[in-house]
């Protein structure tokens, strides 16, 4: 496949006039003008862009194609015919390579429209004596279709598509364009032009934290910066959460709320106590209103996995549970939608933003607020690390599940602290320690998830009986599923000890010490 060459024209240029100039010099056959639209798609967190891919859906000449293209040096192209607009999830596409590729790239994320470009094109071909096309040339006027149906010109250009095996023809055409007509080829990416004209930065959203912090920054200023970023994460995920575009909007929204609450708790010595108390209550409420929908999301996402744990003959009997979960999900989603429209939620955001953007107090009430983040953050992180070790070492095979849950929460708090302040430490070292912690967290997370799932499924089973959704076979299927989950929970519990030992090993302890342990202060003699 030969790469097309682009020759930009001025926006005021007339395409038919340019075509006449070309026809005077080159033996082209012209086709009537045509207009078509190309729709670009990506996930909210730009997974395709991050993977160097572009997904387009184009309707032209009664032909519709969904096409996944590589960018830069990646010239791969996977396409299918698709009459309808692409479905929201890759799983809705016909089976095949494209679905497989998109599934791998998007995972749980929905495909969302990014931009639509309308092109008016005057096509010409160089045809030889055999009637064979040797080169294609297009005069194009690209316009961005804005929401509300307004159009704005992106660019006008000549696009030359040389064909493999006909290099001489291409050379001849290029020579005319560049030497006789004085045009200059220029790489032009239409999607980038469209995004720039809409002030959208591709890859601009990520749920990962990477907040720039200077060690000498006052601790309260640093915390405000972190919390403001988290508030923005909540806000950008709000519309997708309300519209339930995919489960990750609510997930990211909740993570931002949880991180905020963790920052408020772990760095409490940085905030004025009365203000903090007021907002901690408000965020606790926000966390609680989002929980039921998320829980149901998780069960629905795990549903196929649940079915696979059953003998094949019983898999279909679990379907009433899916119906039950879907119905309750819909109810909880409606409740969440209402809660996020309330004045209470709006005020929370406004007041929190007002606090975070208000001028810093000259003489803060707490000592830590005045300290530098480079001093406060490691001290607080070290404190939490020691707590994790203490709690972990106290766990024995006979310890109740609550002890593991407590340790899990502490690990989460430690993880958030490490992520909030990661820019204060050498990237390689902090990332390696986060990885170590993640290994332990996975085990604890699996354990708690399974425990919660077992309790919830028991609860759902009772509820289904009350609501008349339960059949004897479904009850049997759910009992088998519960037993399978219990077995799995025990397996996860059995490997906790080795996972914890791995995390708490001497070499990790030294790495944590080196990074976070505060230097002993000077001795004060009376």
């Amino acid at each position: 496949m030969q790469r097309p060459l682009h020759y930009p024209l001025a926006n005021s240029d007339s395409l038919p006039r340019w075509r006449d100039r070309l026809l005077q010099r080159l033996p082209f056959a012209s086709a009537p003008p045509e207009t078509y639209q190309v729709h670009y798609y990506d996930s909210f967190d730009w997974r395709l862009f991050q993977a160097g891919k572009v997904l387009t859906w184009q309707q032209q000449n009664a032909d519709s194609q969904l096409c996944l293209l590589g960018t830069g040096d990646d010239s791969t192209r996977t396409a299918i015919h698709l009459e309808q607009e692409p479905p929201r999830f890759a799983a809705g596409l016909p089976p095949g390579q494209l679905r497989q590729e998109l599934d791998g790239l998007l995972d749980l994320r929905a495909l969302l429209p990014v931009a639509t470009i309308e092109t008016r094109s005057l096509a010409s071909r160089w045809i030889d004596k055999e009637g064979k096309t040797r080169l294609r040339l297009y005069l194009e006027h690209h316009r961005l279709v804005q929401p509300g149906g307004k159009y704005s010109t992106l660019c006008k250009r000549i696009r030359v598509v040389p064909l493999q095996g006909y290099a001489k023809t291409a050379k001849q055409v290029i020579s005319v364009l560049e030497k006789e007509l004085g045009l200059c080829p220029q790489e032009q990416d239409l999607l980038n032009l469209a995004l720039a004209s809409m002030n959208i930065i591709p890859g601009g959203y990520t749920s990962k934290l990477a907040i720039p912090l200077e060690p000498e920054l006052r601790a309260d200023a640093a915390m405000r910066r972190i919390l403001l970023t988290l508030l923005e994460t909540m806000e950008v995920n709000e519309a997708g959460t309300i519209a339930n575009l995919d489960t990750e909007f609510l997930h990211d929204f909740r993570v931002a709320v949880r991180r905020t609450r963790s920052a408020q708790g772990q760095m409490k010595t940085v905030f004025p106590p009365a203000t903090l108390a007021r907002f901690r209550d408000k965020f606790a409420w926000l966390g609680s209103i989002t929980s039921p929908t998320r829980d149901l999301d998780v069960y629905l996402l795990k549903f196929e996995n649940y079915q696979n744990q059953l003998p094949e003959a019983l898999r279909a009997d679990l379907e009433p549970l899916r119906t039950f979960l879907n119905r309750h999900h819909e109810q909880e989603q409606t409740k969440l939608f209402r809660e996020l429209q309330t004045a209470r939620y709006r005020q929370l955001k406004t007041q929190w933003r007002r606090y975070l953007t208000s001028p810093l107090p000259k003489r803060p009430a707490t000592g830590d607020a005045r300290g530098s983040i480079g001093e406060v953050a490691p001290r607080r992180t070290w404190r939490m690390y020691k707590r994790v070790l203490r709690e972990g070492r106290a766990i024995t095979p006979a310890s109740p599940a609550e002890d593991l849950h407590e340790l899990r929460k502490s690990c989460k708090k430690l993880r958030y602290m490490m992520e909030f302040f990661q820019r204060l430490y050498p990237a390689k070292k902090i990332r390696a320690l986060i990885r170590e912690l993640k290994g332990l967290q996975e085990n604890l997370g699996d354990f708690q998830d399974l425990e919660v799932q077992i309790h919830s499924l028991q609860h759902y089973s009772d509820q289904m009986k009350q609501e008349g959704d339960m059949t004897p076979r479904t009850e049997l299927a759910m009992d088998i599923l519960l037993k399978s989950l219990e077995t799995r929970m025990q397996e996860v519990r059995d490997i906790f000890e080795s996972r914890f030992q791995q995390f708490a090993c001497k070499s990790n302890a030294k790495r944590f010490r080196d990074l976070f342990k505060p230097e002993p202060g000077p001795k004060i003699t009376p």
Partner: protein
Amino acid sequence: MKVIACYNIKGGVGKTASAVNLSYLSAREGNSTLVWDLDPQGASSFYFRVKPKVKGGARGLFKRKCPLDDAIKATDYDQLDLIPADFSYRNLDLTLEQLRKSTSRLEKLVKPMQSDYDYLFLDCPPNISLVSENVFQAADVVLVPTIPTTLSVRTLYQLLRFCEKRKYRHLQILPFFSMVDRRKILHRGMVEDPPKTTSGFLANDIPYASEVEQMGVKRAPLATYAHSSRIADAYRSLWSELKTRMDSLPT
């Protein structure tokens, strides 16, 4: 990349029509597709309006003096390329014979294109020769257009016996009925009760149709000028069945 050889020992059975029409359908679906016209008569090249000429000829290509990439020509259709025929292919057997490992030269030559194309169609010359052995070695599927007549079926059995003897274990031989004229008793009888073969006949057959002959006048794949015809439908069904059969092949 799946390599599909359109092959029959017998000539005039619809090999080229299959290669051209099926490769076009493959490309239309967005698959990156290449056709190699191995027949010195150059019918595929003619249909695609490409001059039947390869720089360096068969010798240059197979002795690796001229890169295969340089021989590739884009057709008038998106995603569909062609390696044209060359008159020197008439001596391809002789050329191959002079080379070491003479039965796997074609396989070696197309291997580097694995990642460039999804499908490679080989439009093969009739006859059974060293070229055929190279084709069987390189191909995943041998698609055998078979006219429902005694002689045509006889050559199919010859081919099956040959492949069994040479133990081409990777190869799927898929015959299908071509140029079927249901007015003829012999054709009708054979299509309804096909001869027994290991992999069986494909369920879809290609009827005899004047639109196929028009390909020579239009110099284009059928679907471009007779999109809604019965014969274009037949090729679509055949392609769909062929893909299903190929999906069961290991990648």
